[in-house]
């Protein structure tokens, strides 16, 4: 009798399609244009000052090749966070769209599923196009690696999407997002191995960095792009991200269930 997760999520297709039509233009700028600035500024221009020593750059022959896989992974995190902060609070607090949805046969878990599917779609288009654009620059060492790198970018993006979604459902004031951006997203972006090898952090901080989900995504993405895959490390990276996604899923559903009974 109860509606399956997929069926419930599919009923929201028309809704998310209108959201897409409304937001894709802004998405183009934040998804493609700004990251390309990063690639040019950091990878090409700043990278010009950095010696391309594979021994120091985790096997990359240029700083550009080193930074690109990390940048895309960090970008995936930022898109995921962007899509699960203000939009989620909006659906709860400002537009109350979720309240109209749960008056129908849909349940909170259906709303979470559809919303996360939309985030996945945003991640896939943003990271996919980003990777395609970078292909001609000779930063990929094998033909198949970038596809697996793309998969790991989606994984790390979804890990953050589920975690932050659950956080947002428990947040009553948008001021909390400022804290999340400054104390969460920014340090993660800077110190999780996207811009420099985490071995430079010193032994203690290196281990802290290894505990962050973003590092697991950056590491996977880079190993696949540079064809330096250590399969046992890769297995651990994937396992960590999958566990985060599963835990994040339950954290999100329980958060939304509680929140929708308590306005």
């Amino acid at each position, binding site marked *: *009798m*109860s*509606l399956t997760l997929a*069926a419930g999520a599919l*009923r*929201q*297709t*028309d*809704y998310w399609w*209108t959201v897409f039509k*409304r937001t894709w233009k802004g998405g183009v700028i934040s998804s493609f244009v700004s990251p390309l600035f990063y690639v040019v500024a950091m990878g090409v221009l700043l990278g010009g000052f950095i010696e391309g020593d594979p021994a120091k750059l985790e096997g990359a022959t240029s700083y550009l090749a080193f930074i690109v896989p990390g940048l895309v992974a960090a970008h995936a995190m930022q898109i995921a966070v962007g899509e699960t902060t203000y939009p989620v609070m909006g659906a709860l607090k400002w*537009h*109350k*769209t979720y*309240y*109209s*949805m*749960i*008056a*129908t*046969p*849909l*349940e909170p878990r259906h709303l979470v599923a559809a919303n996360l599917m939309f985030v996945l779609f945003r991640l896939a288009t943003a990271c996919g196009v980003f990777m395609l654009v970078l292909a001609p620059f000779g930063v990929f060492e094998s033909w198949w690696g970038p596809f697996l790198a793309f998969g790991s970018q989606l994984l790390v993006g979804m890990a953050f999407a589920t975690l932050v979604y659950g956080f947002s459902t428990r947040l009553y004031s948008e001021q909390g997002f400022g804290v999340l951006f400054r104390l969460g997203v920014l340090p993660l972006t800077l110190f999780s191995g996207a811009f420099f090898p985490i071995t430079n952090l010193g032994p203690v901080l290196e281990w802290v960095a290894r505990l962050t989900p973003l590092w697991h995504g950056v590491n996977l993405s880079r190993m696949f792009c540079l064809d330096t895959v250590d399969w046992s490390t890769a297995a651990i990276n994937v396992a960590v991200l999958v566990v985060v996604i599963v835990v994040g899923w339950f954290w999100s559903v329980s958060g939304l269930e509680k929140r*929708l*009974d*308590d306005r």
Partner: protein
Amino acid sequence: MIRARGLRKSFGEFEAVKGIDVDVRRGEAFGFLGPNGAGKSSTMRMIASVSPISGGSLEILGMDPATDGPAIRGRLGVCPQEDTLDNELNVRDNLYIYGRYFGIPKGEVNSRVDELLEFVSLTEKSRSKVEDLSGGMKRRLTIARSLVNNPDLLLLDEPTTGLDPQARHVLWDQLFRLKQAGVTLVITTHYMDEAEQLCDRLVVMDKGLIAAEGSPRQLIEEHSTREVAELRFAITDETNPHEAIAGKIEDLGRLEVLPDRILVYSPDGEEVIAKVHERGLDPIAVLVRRSTLEDVFLKLTGRTLVD
């Protein structure tokens, strides 16, 4: 259609609904009348199967909301107290998208939406943004939206609050037509005229409890007299004269002493006024009227409804 026994709802320590028994039968219009904070909306959200009950039992359309929530909601129409229309969508899309949530096929939703826009006289506005609608139009759109799945049971939480008298009458007329069509209505309101106009049966709710139950006529007969004499006296000095005057007319009927007037409940209001004058009292204004639900409420709770 609805059967509640000892129904409770708590938010943390606070108990908003403290054990109520309710039965709503097929085809009737049932009302919850009560002041702000009485627990009407909390009750409605439990009936709408979006808010888990905290105690007692609740059965809707023969099902248990805890386990059959989706099946129940598929047959309900809900018009919440606060509008939950999507401001980013136009009028028509608000109905269309909502209909899709019920799993109704596209073609069927489309024709249903056209019918409903016609029904609530918003066909001309179908491409307008929701933001540009007046309060009354938004309310009508919310009602149209609640009907998109052809519900058996329609829940309306303060459908006319904030509307001007004309818009209210238009809405009442629409609700009346729905009732004629066999839809069971559950309405909350703090307007007694609305309750009298629309409801076959109602409960008076106050502080999370039911204070009385019956048809509007029954309630008035049971808890009030046929007529009420309202007396206003000039305020001559600092002290409110109403308390002192009340002492002199206690025997004329049950009294309610309000800050601005005294109500005397009696089968014959004119006789009360004549006696007041006989006793040398000189009210600046008098009025005799029939008892209303407002009086029932005052008697039951000691407070006026709209404060």
